């Protein structure tokens, strides 16, 4: 035996060992789907099935299984066509079968030398885990829905007593004005302020739960229309702070749930108006640009800026920056933004320098990316 024969023999032994002893099932079928060869793993599970057809060996089916595309593969007479399916075998195991056509020797006219190499992997434990995960996921979805509903109901039911509280205090201050001393009046003012704050908080919580619960269909909408509406809603606040507002000339058409993105941007612009603080020349830039497959909205202010250590924290619920002593701050606004953006498979982030202003960005995937990701 020369060296070449030795090498071939060695190579054969190695391949044979891998083939025979691997933990997955390997088999070879002819073009009539008859088993010509099976490895030890398969023999151990199903016994010797040489000569039987694959559907008999795995599934006890006398006829080919529904949806089997091996015939099509053979009819096409092409090499290396892969066919994968996952099914439950006759022993109740979940098998992932991968079949690959191959030609051994010279190919006949009708593909008679075409063989099929098959690999059967036992996916039972993975399937069980998948099932368990699916159940847990479903439970989680249900719990989340319950929680959203709870927040909505609680917030809604709390609105009524707040109106009562504000109303009664207002009546006292109006109808009994001449009987109230300054201290009493101050206490009433405190109650009124607290009730107002609670009202804002409840409104924000309602918005947050609404973002989680409602989904309007996405539509193609010019970013300019969205920004115009956002600016329009905060016109009063912009004017009263004397903010110089700059908007992009050109803006793309984006693909989103219009109302949800308007809500997110209203929160960002409202924050920017708060951030510009005492700057004698308050300026806010707002717009939308295309970056690759994304449309990126931005809101830039020349206000107090944010310390980098708070970049992540500010998007958590009930987080407010101490610098902003605005009684209207509830710490829910950026959580609403984050949730709205998450629902859109987008991103939100901030770039800022203390004392020099902040820019908040929202990136939303283009229609093509959304359709690809959602498989529509």
């Amino acid at each position, binding site marked *: 035996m020369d060296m070449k024969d030795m090498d071939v023999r060695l190579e054969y032994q190695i391949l044979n060992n891998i083939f025979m002893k691997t933990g997955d099932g390997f088999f070879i079928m002819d073009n009539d789907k008859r088993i010509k060869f099976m490895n030890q793993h398969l023999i151990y599970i199903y016994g010797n099935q040489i000569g039987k057809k694959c559907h008999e060996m795995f599934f006890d089916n006398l006829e080919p299984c529904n949806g089997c595309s091996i015939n099509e593969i053979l009819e096409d007479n092409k090499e290396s066509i892969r066919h994968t399916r996952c099914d439950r075998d006759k022993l109740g195991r979940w098998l992932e079968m991968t079949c690959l056509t191959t030609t051994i020797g010279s190919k006949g006219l009708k593909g008679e030398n075409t063989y099929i190499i098959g690999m059967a992997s036992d996916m039972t434990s993975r399937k069980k885990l998948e099932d368990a995960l699916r159940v847990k996921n479903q439970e989680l979805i249900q719990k989340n829905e319950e929680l959203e509903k709870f927040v909505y109901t609680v917030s*809604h039911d709390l*609105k*009524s007593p*707040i*109106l*009562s509280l*504000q*109303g*009664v*205090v*207002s*009546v006292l201050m109006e109808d009994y004005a001449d009987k109230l001393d300054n201290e009493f009046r101050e206490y009433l003012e405190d109650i009124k302020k607290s009730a*107002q704050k609670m*009202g804002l908080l*409840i*409104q924000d919580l309602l918005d947050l739960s609404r973002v989680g619960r409602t989904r309007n269909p996405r539509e193609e909408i010019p970013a300019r229309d969205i920004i115009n509406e956002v600016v329009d809603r905060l016109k009063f606040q912009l004017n009263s702070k004397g903010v110089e507002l700059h908007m992009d000339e050109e803006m793309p058409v984006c693909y989103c749930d219009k109302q949800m993105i308007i809500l997110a941007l209203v929160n960002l612009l409202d924050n920017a108006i708060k951030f510009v603080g005492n700057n004698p020349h308050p300026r806010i830039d707002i717009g939308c640009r295309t970056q690759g497959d994304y449309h990126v909205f931005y809101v830039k202010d020349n206000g107090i800026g944010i310390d980098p250590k708070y970049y992540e924290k500010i998007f958590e619920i009930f987080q407010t920056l101490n610098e902003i002593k605005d009684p209207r701050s509830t710490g829910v606004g950026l959580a609403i933004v984050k949730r709205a953006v998450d629902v859109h498979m987008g991103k939100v982030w901030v770039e800022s320098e203390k004392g020099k202003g902040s820019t908040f960005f929202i990136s939303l995937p283009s229609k093509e990316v959304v359709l690809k990701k959602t498989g529509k």
Partner: protein
Amino acid sequence: MSILLIEDDTIHIKLIKRALEKAGYGDTIICLEDGEQAFRYLFPEDARERSPLPRLVLLDINIPKISGIEVLKRIKGDGMLRNIPVVMLSTSKNRNDMETCFRFCANSYVCKPLDFKDFETKIKNIVIYWLEVNDVMDE
């Protein structure tokens, strides 16, 4: 000329009454606190016992026993009563609630503002609108 207020929150009743008094409608308000009372008042078993019909109904959505929506449906389904303007009151801006109310022919839907001044103004304006500007009862 009376205004029928169907509302279960006693403080809201006081506040609405006060707003109406300030608008000059103080003597005309009849208050009922749940849907059953509203049914008995508007649809007595013996029609001869029916009280004089109100010119305007202010109807809270969330009232005990029989909901505001059911009361609305009954009013708008009644040949004699359906021309009475019904203004629905709620603390919610829930779109489903609004759609349901308008589907059953509510004339207005007022979301009670949390700020009391806004609340007073809104109540006053809506009552003036239905009683003086758009007086459908005379049609």
